Structure formats: structure tokens, C-alpha cells
């Protein structure tokens, strides 16, 4: 990469070829941005990142302007600061400034910049565009808070391919939404919530279901079982000041207990159960009993995608429910019986890094037990709010462990939180079954990492097993097109996660500002916490989970057997949007 000599704020620097913003970052000079998202949204539209450049006729946007040899850049002259202040005040003049009731107060990028620039919210008081609120089971869009940065549009189109939202109308009346006023839920949206993660303000937020949880906790007749997903524990610390990529499982369990619930079970347990079911299913298909390649089915965003866009390949999906749905089924049958509790009195709430799960629990066939598998899903963010509201001082808590009965998983189950994790967990089990002996090394490094598509070949019992791991719908699209074109005849097993990087960066995880995303490998750091925990663990295989084996012996019978199918497997629906 070429190196250039520039001057920033009067001092000389040698920087890499790139934008003025990147050059400033290398020089340790911070330039505020709003619409800029590295690689995703190089728009130059908000005009917050303007700088003065000697010889330029106007103030260029540093996020999209390339540096050149000898360029002289000034990042905080009076003209620049006055301009940024005015840009912010103009934005604020058409913004719902009710910070006190907004879920993003304290983490809102507009709010913190407005503070930094001592903005006068009333300076440009005038007409305000009426922002419409759109409410779905998984997210809420409030356009009165939208600053039209288009980061959500970029996430939906570039990251997630489906591109169901975009700017409508023009000028002052521009608003972000679906085309032709369609409902979001029926527009081809996959409910991934990546748009929420990139929104700088409170314009996009998860549907808050904490009131349902409080109601159940406060109801003395209800036995509340709370179950967190693998990825939650490597994200929740960020809500309490811990660095990105810290596994806070112990404090998380302790905190959940102190909310007043009756049981705290790990979804990692049912992740192990899923591996038993899905691994067995794969082995059957490898013997010709079902279509190959087989796709994983634990990501509801991915299920939303394939049902709407590629319904012809539904038979390739594993029929396994996702882990937390299996949790619900087991809790309301096996657990209820063992504990002597009437399942109608059990309230299952799972904590997910995901918003699509809120839609997953209201699918039709989720009550094979006779009761809803899961009564409520809250995101990592909602859990953090509940912990804070309940006065629980997270940082001072001791480390606690999950309940023992059907409550603990191996770290193979924990791997589910990262892209490639399901694949690796499955391979550990399938490999040992096929090889009929313990593996010397349990690490399948080829399927790890935040790369969008990973292809690997594993030699098991003398045969090559071709596997693919993809995360993010843009990459899922690539894989599906290859499948359509007949290019994946060799592939046996494909793991697809809706969110790029896997659940660690799901639509329900703690929000980090663009400043952090642009300079930090958030996905990699959170995933690393998972892999480090796994490396240090002594229980790394799903099929060696004692409770899981007892569950089969005492209740389910055989993996993929009749009872397992009834409780732990599901069906899919052709919801093709092309017919609309």
C-alpha cells in the first residue's frame, strides 16, 4: 500500500493511501462521523466529518475523500466546528428530542455529539416531518428519531442482501421504510435486526418484552425458567463496562437468579441436544435417507430467508428445532414431570442475542408438548435493562453456575454462538461416531473465523466430508445461488447463520457505536471469548453431556426417534414472496 506525506493540524505525518478520515485515525486525530460505516456505508451524506483542506473550495467529507501527497488538513478550525454544530442542530431540529423516554439515551450517537458540540436544539425550530411508528413482533421503527444516515439501508442491502428498506419520497419529506408502504413483516424482511445494531439513534429498537417477564416473575403461581443463549454471555459484559470479548457467564447467571426467577438453565445444554439430533440426522442423510446438502436450522433469520426466497430447498433443512425451542419442549415435559410442576404454570423465557427469535416463538407448530415451547424471548439488551432496573450490581456479583438438572452444556454447545460453531460442534460428535474412537484434536480450525464463507473438507472414516459455513444473508444468497446452479453436489453439511459473524453479532446484542465498529473487530473479539472458554474447558463434546444422555435414556429414547421427532423437530412453510 502506498504511503503519502500529509499535514494534519499543522503536523507532518506519513499515512497509508486511503481516506482523510483513515489518515486522521492513523495520526491519532478523531473526526466525528454519523453516517459513515466502514465498507458498508461510505456515503458522505451527513456532512459531520467535514474538514478544511488547503486549496479546496468547500469542506470535503473526510470519510469519502482520498488523501493525496502533500495535502494539508485541518480538523477543528472555527469554520469546521461551526459547520458541524450547525449540521447537528439542523438534524436536531427535525428530531424527536424526548431523550428521557428513549431506550438509547446514553448510547445514542446523536445525543453524545450534540452534547460534545453544545448544540441548541431550538436554534432551527421549524416544521417537523411526522415520523410514523411501525410496530412488529420483533422490532419497532420510529421515524421521528431517524436522522436519515442510511446505515440501516446499507445493512439491509449490502450486509443482508434482502434490501427491503430504503428512502421514500425526497428532500425534507424523505423517510426510510419499505416500498409502497408495505408492512415490514410481509416485505421480505428476515427479522435479523442488523438494522437495529447499526442505527445511531433510537429510530430502530427491539420490541421490548420485559413487562411479560416481570409479570411472570411477580406472579406467585408461575414457575419462571430463564435460559440464555450461548452468545449472550460474551456480550452482556459490555452493558456493564467490561471490554468487548469478555465471557461473563458467572455474573450473568448470578444476576438472572437475583431477578427472582425459579430456575436458570443454559441453552448450551439443548445445543448439545441439538447436536445429538442433528448429527444423527446428518448420518442418516449421508446414508441416503434424505437430501444433501443438509442445512442447519437454528437461525430463525436464516429460516425466514429460505422460506421466503428459496422455498424449493426447504427439504434440505435439518428438521431440528433451534436449541431454545428444544429447551422449551423439554422444560414443559421432562423437567416439569421431574419437578412435579404443572406445565401450564411454567413460564419459559429465553435470553437471546437475536430479535428474530421473538418471531420464531409464535410459529404454529411450537407446542408439540401441548404448551408453547417458549413463552417469551428477551434480547441481551433487555436483560441488561432488567438487571439495572432491579438494582442488581452486576460488577460486584460472584460467579455462579447454572442449575444442574438439564441446565449445563458442554463448550461444544457454547460454540453455537460463533459462525462455524454449530459445524464444529457437530463435527466433533459425528467424527467420533464415524471414527468410533476419540479424536486426537477437537479443534476444527478450518471452520472458524469471521470470514463470510468458509469451505472445508474433513476426512472421517476414510471419506471426505465437504462442509460449508456461511454467515450473513449476502453470503447465504451466494450459497443458495450455487446450490440452484448445481455447483454444490459434493457438499454434505452447510451451516448458515443469518447474522454476519454469527450470533455474537446478532440483532439483540449490545449496541456499539460506529466509532467502535469502524476500528474494532467486534465480531472477532466476542467469538474469541467463546473459543478461549472452549479451549480451557474439560467438557468439549456434546455427546459426552451426562444429562443429555440421561434425557435420552429416561425419556426420549433414540436420537431422531419418534418422541424426539414429536418434541424436538419442526416443519417449514413455503412463504415465497415472489408470488405476491
Amino acid at each position, binding site marked *: 500500500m502506498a504511503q503519502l506525506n500529509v499535514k494534519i493540524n499543522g503536523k507532518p505525518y506519513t499515512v497509508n493511501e486511503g481516506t482523510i478520515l483513515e489518515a486522521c485515525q492513523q495520526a491519532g486525530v478523531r473526526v466525528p462521523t454519523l453516517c459513515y460505516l466502514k465498507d458498508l456505508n461510505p456515503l*458522505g451524506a451527513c456532512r459531520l466529518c467535514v474538514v478544511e483542506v488547503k486549496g479546496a473550495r468547500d469542506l470535503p467529507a473526510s470519510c469519502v475523500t482520498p488523501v493525496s501527497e502533500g495535502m494539508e488538513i485541518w480538523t477543528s478550525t472555527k469554520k469546521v466546528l461551526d459547520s458541524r454544530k*450547525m449540521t447537528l442542530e439542523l438534524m436536531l431540529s427535525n428530531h424527536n428530542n424526548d431523550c428521557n423516554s428513549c431506550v438509547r439515551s446514553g448510547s445514542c450517537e446523536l445525543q453524545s455529539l450534540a452534547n460534545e458540540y453544545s448544540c441548541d436544539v431550538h436554534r432551527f425550530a421549524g416544521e417537523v416531518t411526522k415520523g410514523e411508528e411501525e410496530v412488529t413482533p420483533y422490532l419497532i421503527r420510529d421515524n421521528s428519531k431517524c*436522522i436519515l444516515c442510511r446505515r440501516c439501508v446499507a445493512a439491509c442491502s449490502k450486509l443482508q442482501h434482502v434490501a427491503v428498506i430504503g428512502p421514500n419520497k*425526497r*428532500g425534507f419529506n*424523505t423517510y426510510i421504510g419499505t416500498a409502497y408502504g408495505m408492512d415490514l413483516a410481509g416485505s421480505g424482511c428476515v427479522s435479523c435486526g442488523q438494522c437495529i445494531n447499526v442505527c445511531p439513534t433510537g429510530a430502530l429498537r427491539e420490541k421490548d418484552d420485559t413487562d411479560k417477564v416481570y409479570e411472570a416473575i411477580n406472579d406467585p403461581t408461575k414457575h419462571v425458567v430463564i435460559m440464555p443463549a450461548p452468545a449472550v454471555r460474551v456480550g452482556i459484559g459490555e452493558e456493564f463496562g467490561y471490554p468487548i470479548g469478555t465471557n461473563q457467564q458467572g455474573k450473568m447467571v448470578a444476576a438472572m437468579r437475583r431477578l427472582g426467577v425459579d430456575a436458570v438453565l443454559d441453552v448450551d445444554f439443548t445445543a448439545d441436544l441439538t447436536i445429538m439430533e442433528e448429527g444423527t440426522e446428518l448420518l442418516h442423510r449421508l446414508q441416503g435417507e434424505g437430501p444433501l446438502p443438509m442445512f442447519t436450522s437454528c437461525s430463525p433469520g436464516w429460516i425466514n430467508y429460505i422460506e421466503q426466497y428459496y422455498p424449493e430447498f426447504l427439504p434440505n433443512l435439518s428438521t431440528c428445532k433451534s436449541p431454545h425451542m428444544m429447551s422449551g419442549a423439554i422444560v414443559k415435559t421432562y423437567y416439569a414431570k421431574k419437578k412435579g410442576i404443572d406445565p401450564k404454570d411454567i413460564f419459559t423465557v429465553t435470553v437471546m442475542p437475536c430479535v428474530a427469535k421473538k418471531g420464531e416463538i409464535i410459529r404454529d407448530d411450537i407446542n408439540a408438548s401441548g404448551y408453547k415451547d417458549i413463552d417469551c424471548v428477551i434480547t441481551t439488551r433487555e436483560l441488561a435493562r432488567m438487571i439495572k432496573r432491579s438494582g442488581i450490581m452486576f460488577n460486584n456479583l460472584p460467579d455462579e453456575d447454572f442449575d444442574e438438572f438439564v441446565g449445563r452444556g458442554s463448550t461444544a454447545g457454547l460454540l453455537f454462538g460463533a459462525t462455524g460453531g454449530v459445524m464444529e460442534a457437530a463435527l466433533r460428535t459425528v467424527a467420533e461416531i464415524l471414527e468410533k474412537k476419540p479424536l486426537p484434536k477437537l479443534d476444527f480450525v478450518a471452520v472458524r473465523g469471521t470470514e463470510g464463507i468458509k469451505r472445508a473438507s474433513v476426512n472421517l472414516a476414510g471419506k471426505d466430508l465437504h462442509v460449508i459455513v456461511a454467515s450473513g444473508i449476502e453470503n447465504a444468497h451466494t450459497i443458495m445461488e450455487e446450490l440452484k446452479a448445481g455447483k454444490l453436489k459434493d457438499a454434505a453439511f452447510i451451516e448458515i447463520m443469518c447474522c454476519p459473524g454469527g450470533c455474537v453479532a446478532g440483532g439483540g446484542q449490545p449496541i456499539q457505536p460506529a466509532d467502535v465498529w469502524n476500528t474494532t473487530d467486534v465480531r472477532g473479539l466476542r467469538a474469541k471469548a467463546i473459543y478461549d472458554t472452549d479451549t480451557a474447558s474439560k467438557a468439549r463434546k456434546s455427546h459426552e453431556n451426562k444429562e443429555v444422555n440421561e434425557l435420552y435414556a429416561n425419556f426420549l429414547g433414540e436420537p431422531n426417534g419418534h418422541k424426539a421427532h414429536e418434541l424436538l423437530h419442526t416443519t417449514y412453510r413455503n412463504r415465497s414472496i415472489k408470488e405476491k
Partner: protein
Amino acid sequence: MVRSYILVCGGTGCTSNHSGEIINALNAELKAQHLDEEVKVVMTGCFGLCAKGPIMVVYPEGAFYHSVTVEDVKEIVSEHLLKGRIVKRLLHTEDTTNEKVLSLNDTEFLKKQVRVALYNCGVIDPENIEEYIGREGYQALGKVLTEMKPVDVIETIKASGLRGRGGGGFPTGKKWEFAYNQKNDQKYVCCNADEGDPGAFMDRSVLEGDPHSVVEAMAIAGYAIGANKGYVYIRAEYPIAVKRLQKAINDARAYGLIGKNIFNTGFDFDLEIRLGAGAFVCGEETALMTSVEGKRGEPRVRPPFPAVKGLYGKPTILNNVETYANVPHIIRKGADWFASMGTEKSKGTKVFAVGGKIVNTGLVEIPMGTTLREIIYDIGGGIKNGKKFKAAQTGGPSGGCIPEQHLDVPIDYDNLIAIGSMMGSGGMIIMDEDNCMVDIAKFFLEFVVDESCGKCTPCRVGTKRLLEILTKVTNGEAELADIDRMEEISHYLQDNALCALGKTACNPVISTLRYFRDEYIEHIVNKRCPAGVCKGLTKIVIDKDKCIGCGICKKNCPVNAISGEIKQPHVIDPEVCVKCGLCITKCPKGAISRR
């Protein structure tokens, strides 16, 4: 054998004034009189003197008949064509001398004009390729493809001094050179026919009157930069232009003048039309290309510049219609010929669409360096109704006003910028003492607010807030500090907006403040509109001395604001009055006026 040609204007203006029916009536009458073999009717493009349309010119005498109606056709045929007697009552009367003029070329209107871009407009039938060829058409392309190398073409255009006629004034040769220097196996030539400035119709007239000039020029440009594909982006509101250009493209293709292996030289070039969808911002070059690509037409940041990465990411040149219209002439007659016209830094001629309070509204083409005074008083016939000139607005919503003290500034790109305006695409609106400059600024700003794409914060919100303050001024609700606020937002827009639409949105405000600040102050401090235009500040009043109590105003008032007995002076209730002004037009005694 044909002994006489009757040329009738088929431009949009005259067409909407029934020139098409005149042509039909002529053909029918000529047939009825058995003259249809000797006399041919030809539909042409715009003659330029639009105020006097529908225009008809009869050859061989060159008799210029104005404001022709269908009812005049019988007389024209019997008097002029049969008996050889000019129909004097239809001849143009020179306003300054009160004398009849026979030929269009003898009018004061045309005497100072030099028609280069409009060379064929009003002369040939734009739908007949043979007439274009008959007037040296496609000879420039032939010369270029058989005698010149691409660098020679570029050097010629550079030496001519041709600058972009769409308003930017960028040296055309230099733009072509940037694209030529890019190494890429796919390049594009684009034509900006989105002509969005209110009141501008230069490009429309060229496309309606001489579409082949654009086709030929684009092929020449393609050869020069190494492109074999072109797109003409025309606003959908120009159906006649679209139709005529499409026919020109089809005919040129059929004649082998575009398409594969033109003139057997191995050079391929073809082009197609893309329609706009009602967005002024798509006249901005990157927004135009984004729209051609099928996306939402919004500008994007530069760099990269289109000559490097334009349409579909390939090197692209985009030029205005009028810029292209000059190219075949420059190639045929040479760079020196073109550079002999105009000023030092602005060569050649410029087409202006002159409208407003001027006698001869219409299309004029004058050498650069002509003064505003010459345009208004020599060519334009002076201000209508003997009123006093106040200002001329050039450059549309991106431009500024030129007041009386600058009437003698030679018009060229740099001079106009120096006095706070800009050439723009050629729209020129003449204003008199009855225009309110604050209202004019508001008109252009309302246009910008409506047409803003909404991508960048400064334009999306800033122009809206600027308009809100300006509206307060016109409603008498502003304070003096609002002038400072407007100037502050204006300078912010110039520095921060993403594209030229936003950057120049404040120009009408800034330039009217520069030359007519006293009008703003009058609106703010005395809550009065001197020109009597701003509805919020004017009252409509019945002069009781002139009022005869006929009651016509009362009967016509849409909001029942007028009261009074028959034969008694009537009175308008200012609380109810919406100031539509209908009563003023209806009053038989002129007793009602705005104050």
C-alpha cells in the same frame, strides 16, 4: 416543381398554440386550391421569437408572419400563394420604429444574433434526415472518422475554447481528454437533456428543431474518447423532443450514420434514450448516471469523477445538449472560427431563453460578450408596457440577479460569477418594478426545497429552514436578525452541501440581498412589500372614489369578502380576503388595487 415553401414552427410553444392545426389547415387548403404540388409546408424547429408565435415564414420572399391562427390560413393561401400579395397585417411590427418588417432576419430581434447551436432550428424539418444532411449534416462525423485521430478531435475542441453550456462552464475539451486518458475497454458518452431550470427551453428547442446535431456530436465524442455507447437522458416532460430524437436515432441508424462500422471505418457507435422521472436533481451529473443505472437518482460524492469512474463505474463524459450542438460546427469550420467569437475566456455563442417582463420573449443566441442591455433593449424589444427594468435572473435556482448597474457587463462565464450570478444553462428572466425581489428569491428557494434529493443534511434540512425564514420575511413576521440567520445558513450551505444543488441553493437569496437589501429591510421593519406582491403584506383595497357599486367584484369573490349595496362603494374585509386578486381583474373601472 416546388415554387414555394411555407415553414411553420413545430416547437412545443407554438404547437401548444395550435401550429399543428395550422399545418393541417394549410395542407388541406393548398390541396383544395390545387397548389399542393407547387407549395410545400414544412414543420420546423423554433424560430426564437416565441412571443409572436405561432410563427410562419413563407419562401421565397422570406415573409415572416406572426401570431398566425387557423382562421388566417385561407387568406394566406389565397392572397400570398395564389395572388403573390404579402398579407401585411400578419407581418411583424418593430416595436421601436413601428414599421413593418418583411423578413425575420431583418428584425431587431435577429440582427444581433449568431445562430450556431440553433443553426438548423427554424430552417429544416427536424424529422427529415435528408434536410439535415442537406445542410452539411454528418459531414463533421465523416471528417472526424476518416481524417482525424481521436487526439486531433480533442485538440480541436480544446482549441475552440468550448465550455459546458449546461451551466458549469467546464472546458469541454479538457473533460474529453480526462476520459480519453483512462484505460478501459468500456466508456460511455452521455447527454444531459434533463433541462430543469424553470423557464429554460434551450435544450428542448435544439432537440425538437435539430436532433441530429446531438446524435452526430455524440458519435464524434465517442470516437474522441474511445466510447461506442451513448445515453441521452431526457426529462419525460418533453414528449415532442423525445419523439423527434428517437426518430433521428432510428433514421441515422437506418442510414448507417450510427451503428456498426460507420463509414466503413471500423468505428461502432450507438445510443439510446433514457427518460427522467420528474426530478430536477437528476440534471446533476452523478445523479443522472445513478438514475440511468436504475437507482434512486441522487448525487454521489466526488472523487471519483465521472471521467474516471462514471456510468456503471466506467469512464464517462456527460455534456449538455447545447454543448453538443456546437461540436459539428467546430469540427467543420475549425477551432479558430469558433474562438473568433466571444470573449477571451468564453468563446463562441450562448443560447438564452428570455422570459418575463420583456417584449420579445423567446429564444436568442448571441456571441459571448454581448451585454444584458443589448439583449433586453436591442434584441428583446425593451421592457413590456413601458415599465422600468429592475433585474435579470440568470442561472435559475442556482443563479443570481443582475441589477441595473450591471446592464453593460459583457455576458460571459466569469463576469457573471464576479457580479454574484452565473451563466447557468441559459434561462433568463427579466423583472421590472412590479416584481418583488424577496418574492423572487422565495420562488427559487421553494423550487429547491421541493427538488432536494434529501441525502445530505445541509440541503435536506438547511434549505427548508432557510425557506421558512424567508417566508417569515414575506409575511411580515421576521426581524432584522433573520437576515443574519439567512446569510449564516447560506454560507454553511455553500461550504457543506454534497452537490451543486445544495451549494447554490442560497444564491438567489444572497444575490438579492446583495443588490436589493433595502427591499428586505422594508419587508421586515415596515412590514411592507414595495412592489405590492407579497400577499402577507399587501391588502387589496377598493378605491371608493372610483367604485361605481356595480357589484361584479362581490359576485366573483370566492370567499365572500366583499360587501356593499348596489350603486354604493363596496368594501373588502381584510380578515376574510385571501388576496387572490380576482376582483382586481374583474373590476370594470380599475378601482381595485394591491397596496
